[in-house]
């Protein structure tokens, strides 16, 4: 269309450019772009209503976007219906045909593609083995467990060897334990088959555990794209930071000097440089698990005093809620995750006054 296919890097396999979609006055997609390499697992993560499912459906060709293009394997597929995009889809509800057996469900897309009977049978056997359902071929969906149904849906989607696998919250209907196990299975299957996979989820843990790259969306816009590590440790904005994991924010800090901030009577030092001009307000952020409890005698650069207001037991660790003493009168709430062993050893209780360290390499800075 606009650009010749040869202008992409050779490994770019799927490219979405400037997609937009409105439902009435509501902007579901507001100029979304993304690229995917062959064999990559990309996760679209965002709160409900952020446009992630709309994006997936537009990539699949199920809904027509109002504007923008989709390129797949070097060709423009923007105007092709779903049946001609060669995509495999797994829905949240699985949408397994209830009156067909597991094997018939898996072979459903093969029969119309000119596979011979023997080849269909062979392929079904192969897929059943691949998803670990040998011997379940004659069972109807209602006779399978939720996890097994999920695997049939996956096998059915990848049976016709699609160019891209699209997963729409594929694990959210399962209970926690099955979900954790299937997470790993789906991921290892995807890696073994080198399937280019696009998954939509609102579950950050799922995204962190499975994806090569995560794309965070909100209100129809892409907020950040990056590896799970980047997204978690270097969130691009306070929104991303608070959406993924928990995050403490120290608001209304003022930049005093390069890498030095003041909040009330506190002075905080950070390692990394930031674009906030001197004298301007800033937001400091730190994850609860990065806050360290200090023993007497330790003197890190950001040593602060806090009073414990509440302890919440979580098995392996405690969530410690504290009030940071800013000066004589003012306090600011902050939370830390501390191992149970350390809480016992330091005899931390409610109302105890403790010293904490906000490590300079873990503090994040955002412009206010």
């Amino acid at each position, binding site marked *: 269309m606009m650009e010749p296919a040869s202008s992409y890097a050779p490994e770019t396999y799927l490219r979405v450019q400037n997609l937009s979609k409105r439902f009435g006055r509501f902007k579901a997609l507001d100029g979304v772009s993304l690229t995917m390499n062959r064999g990559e697992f990309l996760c679209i993560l965002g709160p409900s209503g952020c446009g992630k499912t709309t994006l997936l459906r537009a990539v699949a060709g199920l809904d027509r976007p109002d504007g923008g293009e989709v390129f797949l394997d070097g060709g*423009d597929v923007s105007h092709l219906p779903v*049946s001609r995009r060669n995509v495999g889809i797994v829905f949240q509800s699985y949408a397994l*045909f209830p*009156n067909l057996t597991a094997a018939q469900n898996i072979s459903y897309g093969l029969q119309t*593609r000119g596979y011979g009977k023997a080849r269909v049978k062979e392929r079904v056997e192969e897929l059943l083995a691949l998803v670990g359902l040998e011997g379940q071929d004659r069972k109807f969906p*209602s006779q399978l467990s939720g996890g097994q149904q999920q695997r049939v849906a996956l096998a059915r989607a990848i049976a016709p060897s699609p160019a891209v696998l699209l997963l729409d919250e594929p694990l959210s209907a399962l209970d926690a334990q099955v979900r954790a196990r299937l997470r790993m299975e789906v991921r290892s299957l995807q890696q073994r088959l080198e399937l280019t996979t696009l998954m939509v989820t609102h579950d950050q843990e799922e995204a962190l555990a499975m994806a090569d790259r995560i794309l965070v969306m909100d209100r129809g816009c892409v907020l950040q794209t990056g590896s799970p590590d980047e997204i978690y440790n270097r969130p691009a904005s306070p929104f991303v930071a608070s959406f993924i994991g928990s995050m403490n924010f120290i608001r209304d800090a003022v930049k005093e000097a390069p890498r030095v901030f003041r909040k009330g009577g506190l002075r905080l030092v950070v390692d990394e440089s930031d674009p906030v001009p001197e004298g301007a307000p800033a937001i400091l952020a730190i994850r609860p698990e990065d806050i360290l409890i200090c023993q007497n005698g330790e003197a890190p650069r950001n040593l602060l005093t806090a009073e414990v207001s509440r302890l919440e037991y979580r098995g392996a660790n405690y969530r410690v809620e504290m009030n940071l003493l800013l000066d004589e009168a003012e306090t600011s709430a902050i939370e830390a995750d501390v191992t149970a062993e350390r809480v016992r050893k330091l005899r931390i209780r409610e109302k105890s006054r403790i010293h904490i360290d906000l490590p300079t390499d873990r503090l994040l800075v955002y412009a206010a």
Partner: protein
Amino acid sequence: MLSRPSSLESASVRTLDVEAWVLRALTMLACLWMVCFVLFPVAQLLWKSFLTAEGEFAGLSNYLVYFRTPALSSSLTNSLYVSALTTAGSTTLGFMFAYALTRTCMPLKGFFQGVVMTPLFAPTLLNGIALVYLFGKKGLISQGFFGHIPGIPVELYGPFGIIFAQILYTFPQAVLILSVALRMTDARLYEASESLGASPFRTFFTITLPGIKFGLISTFFVCFILAFTDFGAPKVVGGQYNVLATDIYKQVIGQQNFIMGAVVSSVLLVPTVVAFVVDRICQRRQFSALTARSVPLVPRPSGMRDILALTFCSAVALGILGFYGTALFASLVKVWPYNLSLGLDHYNFSKMGGGGIGSLFNSIRMSLYSAILGTVMTFGSAYLIEKSRGLRALRQVSYMLSLVPLALPGMVIGLSYIFFFNTPSWSLLGWDIPNPFNVLYGTMGILVLSNVVHFYTVSFLTATTALKQLDREFETVSESMGVPFYRTFARVTVPVCLPATLEIAIYYFVNSMATVSAVIFLYSADLPLASVAVANMDDAGDIAPAAAMAMLIVGVNILVRCLYGFVNRWVQGTTQAWARR
């Protein structure tokens, strides 16, 4: 457009664009079908009521004539009066019966449930005929069982007979709707009420009644519409008491006054449409109080209540069985009430007018065709409306149109079809448009079409409900795999919905067998029908053969219903094996 990788260029994949267009064309056809056979005929009928016999525009003058002729306009009040009383009686009795079926621990529930449905298999003419044998001049009750006990003379012909027959006719519908409403409840509400110390009386008025509010409203309107538009009962036991449905018949068949027939039809249509619209508005407000987490209410035994329920239901069941038993007995008796020896003399229709036994076979044939065409049309258009994408506005229009037949009385459908199919051509703005459906006039085709439309809405809603239970992504999944829609329709949609389609088919068959109102205008002399023969023989005073023919209709319906039971069991056992865990 850039070329795609060659692996995707298989023939089956390329046909899918064609399929999308086929689907659209079918959706348009489904809408066109409703426009042609529902909207146009009724519109033309309404239009006729504003014309003179010569086809000149007459404004409201026909209506002025109607309302200035007391013999005509009194029918409107008569119709409203009997329908109101029928509705009140039927709703009350229906509620008591449904309550006993769903909220008590009385025995024999299955039996009662079966017996109460009997009237659905019979033409309403039979209700009138049975009444004649019970309360007529030589009736069983008015003569005290052939003089064995003192008789109770009753003024049968008139409102009493009509209301009695119509309560019987609408009773099963009331029980059906209210049973569903009473079953849809959450036991936890009752437990909460009990734990808060509310009396049973208070629980009934604060939880039971509000819980079935929408069911009651629906029952109310359904009974009213059925009674208001019923033709069979007033035809037989109406006597000099005129109602709208019989007036249309008298105007059209008796006096050949088609214009006045159209006027009366319009008058009949107004309250019916109002009731229909009000019911729809009420139902739209309904929210589902029942969630996936609701606990079904299981009635607990309670001596006094269960005995009362059993007594009441036994009395009703005995009444119904005795009622139809009397008609059966009368059809077998040689000369009522003088020679009570039994025989099949009245079942020999060769000396009678009305087409004889051949009419029964015509009826069976017509009902079979109606069942097939009706099932295909209702399920097909419900599928297109529910499951296809695109053409959203058109599908919504089709859905609305599919609800309209529920508001159309059989007489109105019949008369509007006379006008519509009999017109050789329409002239519009100087153009002469020939009527392509004219050839159907006087054939089996028009009879089948009128039945398909007459019983369309209930079947359509049954199909829609069944289709709604299917995952919405079945179609998308198939499409993404390049499987054509008709393949998924045949391999998944239809097999999964088979029980619902069978139910639709049986509904069509039973109703087509029993109906009189629409077909009485449309049958031709060489295609006599059983239900019409009942009306004609009764008209001629041959009431015993009329009862015999009506019994045959009931017999065929019960037989087909049993057959359906077997087929259904087989279907559940074989093709629905997936539904069992």
